[in-house]
């Protein structure tokens, strides 16, 4: 199981800015190891976000996203105390969900 994500959600006005730092290798499948063998691709493909259980955002990522990906977006109408949950799924089928409270 992958390491937990770091999620910060801060309310400002009528929306909340969500910053997520995920822990993932994000291998492109183009690199070669010391023995000249291609390192198999391993990256996050799908990211979804929910606000109090309601899906608000989803994204599809390619191998071009950097290692330990960062993501920032803003949820309209989110206020302090609301729950923001982020889920990612990688191309090996591994998945992880973490939740944060808007402050």
């Amino acid at each position: 199981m992958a390491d937990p994500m770091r999620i910060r959600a801060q309310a400002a006005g009528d929306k909340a800015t969500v910053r997520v730092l995920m822990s993932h290798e994000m291998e492109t499948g183009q690199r070669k190891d010391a023995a000249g063998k291609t390192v198999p691709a391993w990256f996050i493909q799908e990211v979804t976000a929910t606000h109090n259980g309601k899906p608000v955002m989803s994204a599809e990522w390619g191998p071009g996203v950097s290692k330990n990906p960062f993501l920032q977006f803003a949820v309209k109408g989110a206020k302090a105390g609301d729950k923001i949950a982020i889920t990612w799924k990688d191309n090996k089928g591994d998945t992880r969900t973490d939740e944060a409270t808007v402050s």
Partner: protein
Amino acid sequence: MQTRRKTIQHSMVVASLLATAGFPQFANAAFNKVGFDAKSIQDAVKAYGGGNISESKDVTVTAPDIAENGAVVPLGASTNLTGVKHMLVLVEKNPSALIAMFHVSDAVDANFLTRAKMGQSSDVYAVAIMADGKALFAKKEVKVTLGGCGG
């Protein structure tokens, strides 16, 4: 001793393995393979139902002028327009141009920031695909200096 029949059987197995494992990273069905296989900006936009791309000042791409480390380049895409369906972040000269695609809903701002890898200096595109299929883009050149050898 290896017979001719065995040799042929073996080579057929290898061939079929190669055929199916060509792009193992795209084995997931829910994932839009076409979009991430696309080599050009226009092909990637088409994969998400966008038409011909046109430049627009309503779309903003956030990127540094010079990226010292090509492995971590902060890239963002944003727009103030309403009726945006998808936001795309693309790097023109990467092996697969499409970096990330965001589904925009009413509940979020069409304003996303992430970090990407860049193999070399290239134009970076932010594309907004509208509900009516129009595709608007903004671009910016980012110079990548790897190991201090200059862009």
